[in-house]
């Protein structure tokens, strides 16, 4: 098995080809386009499976990777060195897992979309965008350098723009899509700054070159605008993550993204777009570490996790709850990066992708069923739901499992990953005082998560139906291949044992065909930058040099720490696990009391905490700040002012004002002309001419022959002078 274009390229090329073909034929044969999208997605998934199998089951090495490049374009020699801009693939365990997740989720979402979008006017077009979106995400995962990451990053931005604005006849969709694109673009710009900083320093943006440069200290002693270059670039790149993964303070776009169709929300929130940001930070983790910004990252993550969770508390729109929960979970991931839980953050990325995809699709299933005949639209508002578990049992099961997972109940995937992040946060908090706040925020957010998720469950599926008419019009769910089966498949993967052998993700478990059982924590390791200094670039199509680092991985219960450290860590982790279990149940309990027992009134809480409640209602005033203050007052005001200056002042008065100078010059010269030249000179000449006129007019008889005689006389006199 050799990783060349034939093995890997189909993973991205198939969806991309589907996009290209569908873009042209979708108007003619939408059904065919849908089929093509799904089939290519499935094929791509198969290829991803194969890669996953090779990397995780067969090779089983944490240090194994494949790196192939070809020259995209070159600019000849610069300072004696060839300046090539390369493209290529970089595959390691993380990419392999992520590929599987992306293609898998995307496949499920594709299949679900055939159900969800079936009656839409632009059924086919939706799949065109889906294909491109998935292709872009796959490309991002396969990218070997930051530039190509940026290319796919932006491409995803474009796709999200298109998908959020999918219902373009709605004004709100336009606003939301533009908001999404622009907000992420803010991060992108900084990301590009970071790329440029790295590129111009080490002449390459390849991950392995960056790792090698970090190891060899190529960044040392360089500064940009007074900041060390490595910090500068780390911050810049992390700002990219902030934009893409909707972290504080650029989280505003994500809730609006639900303007798009629900499957598209699933794709954005779970598998593709937001994952990309976290993935980037994980890839660039050595840089973040070297730049010393992990604390900042942890704070950002903690604040995001907590803030989003609080906002989710009061949302009534089912999708909005899920959207804020996404932000909150992304906050956990970033928190994980900040506290050094590299493995756990990545695991949470995967687990979250699975259960969030499932949640969104379930929500989609619910929304799709609830058809309001008055407005001829679907209902997303939870206050109008209730008691739906009888009508849609399969969806209910799927959603319940996912809720358990996200709330961090034991035996579910969310518990494994989130618990490890919180454990590491606790560990950090115990060591460093500055890290207490993120850890505390993380734990509170866990509580809130459990609460609002169960609140959502109870409001939706339990109790009496609050909108009777709606309830009665809703059909009872039957098992169908493209509605509940995808949900149930995803539900299976919300169970924890797929990811970890133990309850806490740190024990051993039997796994069929795998020698060392705790595969996730064994194989996913943060890159050891020292190893990359020996690295040599491989040309596209050459055989792999994997043997260079190849070494079968084995499970290390201490994670490379000394025995004492490991013991301490284990201890703390156990405390964290217990704490989070308690917290999760506590959150469940509150929700139960409020919405099932109705013992505690939510209204009481909201009236008690009314300032905070208002802040939550307006989402902490971020939208107001950005749109009303910064954009409308600031930017547009400045624009209008500048445009007015440009055309109204500069152009009209200064440029056209040169006319005044001309006019003055014209007056002067006019005066001179009239008074001096004309009166004295010209009229004077005229007067003298008039004198001669009297003489000459007799000659001017109009008779040719007379002229001719004069001519002869003149000629003769001329001849006489000659002769």
């Amino acid at each position: 098995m050799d990783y060349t274009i034939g093995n890997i390229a189909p993973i991205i090329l198939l969806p991309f080809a589907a996009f290209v073909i569908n873009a042209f034929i979708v108007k003619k044969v939408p059904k065919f386009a849908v089929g093509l999208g799904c089939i290519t997605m499935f094929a791509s998934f198969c290829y991803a499976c194969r890669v996953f199998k090779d990397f995780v089951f067969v090779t089983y090495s944490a240090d194994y990777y494949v790196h192939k490049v070809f020259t995209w374009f070159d600019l000849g020699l610069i300072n004696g060195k060839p300046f090539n801009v390369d493209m290529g693939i970089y595959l390691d365990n993380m990419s392999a897992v992520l590929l599987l997740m992306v293609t898998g989720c995307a496949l499920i979402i594709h299949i679900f979309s055939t159900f969800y979008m079936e009656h839409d006017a632009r059924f086919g077009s939706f799949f065109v965008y889906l294909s491109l979106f998935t292709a872009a995400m796959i490309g991002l995962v396969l990218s070997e350098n930051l530039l190509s990451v940026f290319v796919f990053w932006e491409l995803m931005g474009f796709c999200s723009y298109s998908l959020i604005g999918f219902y373009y006849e709605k004004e709100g969709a336009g606003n939301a899509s533009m908001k999404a694109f622009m907000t992420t673009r803010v991060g992108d710009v900084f990301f590009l700054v970071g790329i440029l900083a790295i590129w111009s320093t080490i002449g390459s943006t390849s991950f392995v070159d960056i790792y090698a440069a970090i190891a060899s200290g190529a960044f040392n002693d360089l500064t940009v605008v007074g900041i060390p270059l490595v910090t500068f670039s780390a911050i810049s790149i992390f700002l990219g993550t902030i934009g893409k993964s909707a972290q504080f303070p650029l989280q505003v776009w994500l809730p609006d993204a639900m303007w798009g169709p629900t499957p598209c929300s699933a794709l954005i929130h779970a598998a593709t777009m937001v994952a990309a940001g976290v993935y980037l930070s994980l890839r660039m983790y050595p840089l973040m570490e070297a730049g010393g910004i992990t604390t900042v990252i942890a704070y950002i993550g903690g604040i995001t996790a907590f803030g989003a969770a609080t906002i989710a508390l009061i949302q009534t729109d089912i999708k909005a709850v899920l959207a804020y929960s996404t932000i909150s979970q992304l906050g956990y991931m970033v928190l994980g990066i900040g506290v050094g839980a590299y493995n756990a953050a990545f695991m949470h990325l995967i687990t979250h992708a699975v259960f969030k995809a499932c949640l969104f699709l379930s929500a989609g299933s619910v929304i799709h069923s609830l058809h309001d005949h008055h407005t001829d639209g679907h209902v997303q508002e939870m206050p109008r739901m209730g008691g739906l578990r009888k009508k849609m049992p399969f969806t209910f099961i799927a959603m319940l499992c996912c809720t358990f997972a996200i709330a961090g109940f034991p035996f579910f995937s969310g518990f494994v990953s989130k618990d490890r992040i919180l454990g590491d946060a606790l560990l950090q908090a115990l060591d460093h005082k500055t890290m207490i706040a993120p850890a505390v925020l993380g734990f509170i957010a866990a509580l809130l998560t459990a609460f609002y998720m169960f609140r959502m469950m109870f409001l939706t599926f339990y109790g009496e139906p609050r909108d009777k008419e709606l309830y009665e019009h809703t059909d009872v769910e039957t098992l169908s291949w493209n509605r509940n089966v995808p949900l149930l498949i995803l539900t299976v993967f919300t169970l924890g044992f797929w990811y970890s052998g133990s309850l806490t993700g740190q024990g051993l478990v039997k796994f069929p065909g795998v020698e060392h059982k705790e595969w996730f924590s064994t194989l996913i390791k943060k890159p050891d930058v020292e190893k990359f200094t020996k690295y040599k670039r491989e040309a596209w199509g050459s055989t792999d040099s994997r043997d260079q680092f190849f070494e079968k991985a084995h499970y290390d219960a201490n994670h490379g720490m000394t025995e004492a450290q490991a013991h301490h860590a284990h201890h703390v982790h156990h405390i964290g696990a217990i704490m989070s279990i308690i917290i999760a149940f506590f959150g469940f309990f509150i929700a139960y009391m409020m919405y099932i027992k109705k013992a505690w009134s939510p209204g009481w809480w909201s009236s008690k905490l009314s300032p905070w409640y208002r802040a939550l209602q307006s989402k902490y005033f971020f939208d107001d700040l950005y749109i009303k203050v910064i954009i409308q007052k600031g930017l547009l005001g400045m624009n209008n002012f500048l445009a007015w200056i440009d055309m109204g002042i500069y152009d009209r008065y200064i440029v056209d004002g040169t006319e005044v100078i001309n006019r003055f010059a014209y007056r002067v010269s006019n005066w001179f002309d009239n008074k001096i030249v004309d009166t004295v000179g010209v009229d004077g000449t005229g007067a003298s001419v008039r004198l001669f006129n009297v003489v000459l007019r007799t000659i001017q008889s109009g008779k040719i022959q007379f002229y001719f005689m004069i001519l002869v006389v003149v000629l003769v006199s001329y001849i006489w002078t000659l002769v």
Partner: protein
Amino acid sequence: MISLPSFLAISFILFVSGLVVMIAKKNIIAILLGVELILNSAALNFAAYTRFVNQNLDGHIMSLFIIIIAAAEAAVGLAIVIRFFQIRESIHIDDATQLLQ
């Protein structure tokens, strides 16, 4: 007998005749006749000089061009005369005094 002076004499007579015609006659076409005579005398002079003095053909070329120009002049001149006649119903040269006004 065939010598340069005799040719010059002939051309001189042609020239003077042309001159007289041009000044004495009041008919525009008659004046054009005079012009033709003068042009011919010039051409003849060229031919004679080139034959007797230069002994090359440049004078011939010159005469040739004079003939060409005479033809063109006659065409345009007569056209003007006819146009003038259409307007004024006269080809008397003294009726063509618009330059005076």
